[in-house]
């Protein structure tokens, strides 16, 4: 129908598939995200460390380049589990900042102007709506964590040879698992905060607060009681423990501290909480987020 023919007409073409319909939400949201130059610039910055890590891997296996740069192989970082754990920690930090920038308006924008009924009166369930919003962060975060991590792993494997690959195949699982846990946690937290707080700035603050406030409390508890048990309330510390566990680098003894006990100065060994407790912390945080989303993402709130 031409636009000058102002008539009501039904759509008679073929409808798109459910899968294509599911991708509508992330497609529109990502278009909005990259309309901001600041966001685009930051997103590009997120690839600086993967680039540095790839150069390190390359140098590690290129004797000529090392000779030209007069670098001793022993001085370079070993390309092992700790190399990839460091990669997870750095990119995980960037992922947190990206989540704080992108996450808050995802649901709050729809809630603040009552747009949810318009989504949910269409052939789209609440679960699909939330999954669509999760896909926005999931795609963004995966592209700057999981994908470069795996590419560097493949790059290292291609340079180190088949023996290294077979000996370190488990590491690919650790990279995927570690990032999947982090991306899942960040996504759920961001959406839950977005569903609870309508103002973007407040939501961003709340999201950062979820990491830094418990982290600060954990530090205080650890210092006061000469323990590491406080780490259990810190999502970041719990995630680090989980990552270390996945890379086989988790140790419960986290160093010693000199303290006065019964008038004598002794060295106390600080014990990290068990690994399962860190998994439990992350799992509980995720479950609370899912519960909040189930309560808040409704077309209309029913007052009983």
């Amino acid at each position, binding site marked *: *129908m031409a*636009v*000058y023919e*102002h*008539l*009501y*007409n*039904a*759509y*008679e*073409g*073929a*409808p*798109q598939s459910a899968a*294509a*319909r599911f991708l*509508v*939400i992330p497609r*529109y949201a990502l278009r*909005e995200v990259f309309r901001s130059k600041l966001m685009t610039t930051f997103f590009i910055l997120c690839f600086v460390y993967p680039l540095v890590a790839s150069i390190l891997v390359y140098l590690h296996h290129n004797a000529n380049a090392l000779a030209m740069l007069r670098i001793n192989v022993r001085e370079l970082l070993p390309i092992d589990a700790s190399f990839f754990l460091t990669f997870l920690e750095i990119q995980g930090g960037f992922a947190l900042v990206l989540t704080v920038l992108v996450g808050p308006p995802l649901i709050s*924008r*729809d809630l*603040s*102007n*009552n*747009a949810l*009924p*318009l*989504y*949910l*009166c*269409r*052939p*789209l*369930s609440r679960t699909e709506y939330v999954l669509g919003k999760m896909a926005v962060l999931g795609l963004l975060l995966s592209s700057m964590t999981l994908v470069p991590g795996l590419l560097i792993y493949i790059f290292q494997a291609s340079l180190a040879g088949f023996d290294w690959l077979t000996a370190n195949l488990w590491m690919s699982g650790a990279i995927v698992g570690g990032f999947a846990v982090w991306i899942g946690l960040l996504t759920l937290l961001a959406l839950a905060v977005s569903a609870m707080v309508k103002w973007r700035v407040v939501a961003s603050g709340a999201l950062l607060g979820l990491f830094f406030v418990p982290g600060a409390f954990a530090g205080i508890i650890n210092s006061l009681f000469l323990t590491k048990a406080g780490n259990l309330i810190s999502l970041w510390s719990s995630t680090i423990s989980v990552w270390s566990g996945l890379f086989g680098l988790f140790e419960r003894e986290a160093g010693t501290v000199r303290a006065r006990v019964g008038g004598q100065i002794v060295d106390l060994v600080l014990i990290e909480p068990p690994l399962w407790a860190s998994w439990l912390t992350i799992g509980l945080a995720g479950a609370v987020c899912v519960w909040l989303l189930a309560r808040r993402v*409704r*077309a*209309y709130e*029913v*007052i*009983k």
Partner: protein
Amino acid sequence: MTNVIELEQLSVTFGKRPILKALDGALKGRAIGLLGPNGAGKTTLIHTLLGFHPPTSGTARIFGRDIAADAKEVRATVGYMPEQDAFIAGMSCVNFVRLMAELSGIPARHALERAHEALFYVGLGEARYRPVDSYSLGMKQLAKLAQAIVHGPKLIILDEPTNGLDPPTRSRMIALIRQIRDGGRARILLSSHLLRDVEECCDEILILKDGSIAANCNLEEERRANRKFIELETRGGDRLAFAEAVGGLGCEYALSGERRLKLILQEQIEIGDLYRLALEKGVQIRRLNYKRDSLEEIFLKAMENEGLTESVGVNGRAVNGGL
């Protein structure tokens, strides 16, 4: 005419508070008016039909599809214009309507074209690139209508579409609704507390009161039936003899006051027959009015006495109460 909405013992309870109480009935009009005082359950009924609230018991069907079992199929055939503001801040209207079209299942390549068409259709063509949050109230209402019709639904649910509109914008909205109704490609369910809106747009009404159906009648049939109800004002002659003669034709009648005569005209009786009898009895007919049960009267009667459904008939009450 096929049933648009079928209600089958539909009940909805929030906590321990019953909101809809075992609603039963079939609505088949081209444009169905949903009326009722505040808190009657109009919006809850709409939300339940859209799947926002699960029925506590019973069910409903839209075009024969169960609202619970075939929720997605039902929602694919429905367009919904909510009562309050509903838009995505910062998004241009054309993009907003396009997004809604795509979510309804229209492929991306057609959705933009449909969005432009819908916005031109409702009269927002010139303003379609502006963000919806910069619109006036009337424009926001039209934008909501555009998103409700962009995918060409078979049933358009309009919740208080003329709320807060100035007279010209209201007229425009009513004209659009009537145009869609007369086009015959979509049925309309119009919820409003403004009887005039419903009277102008709808051919069937469902009146709710305290979560129950207080009346369900076909306005077109009402209007046709009301043509049989006549009120005469007479002067002089033998009024009683004239009334008896009218009764002799098989018409029910009732005398009221000194000059008035109300009667129900039988199918085979013409107005000319009344004039002939009046002449014979020396009675002057000074005024002849067809009784017209306005929607307001139907509504008020329904509010007085719930359970007034089509099986009983609003006419029945008019006969008892009026004659």
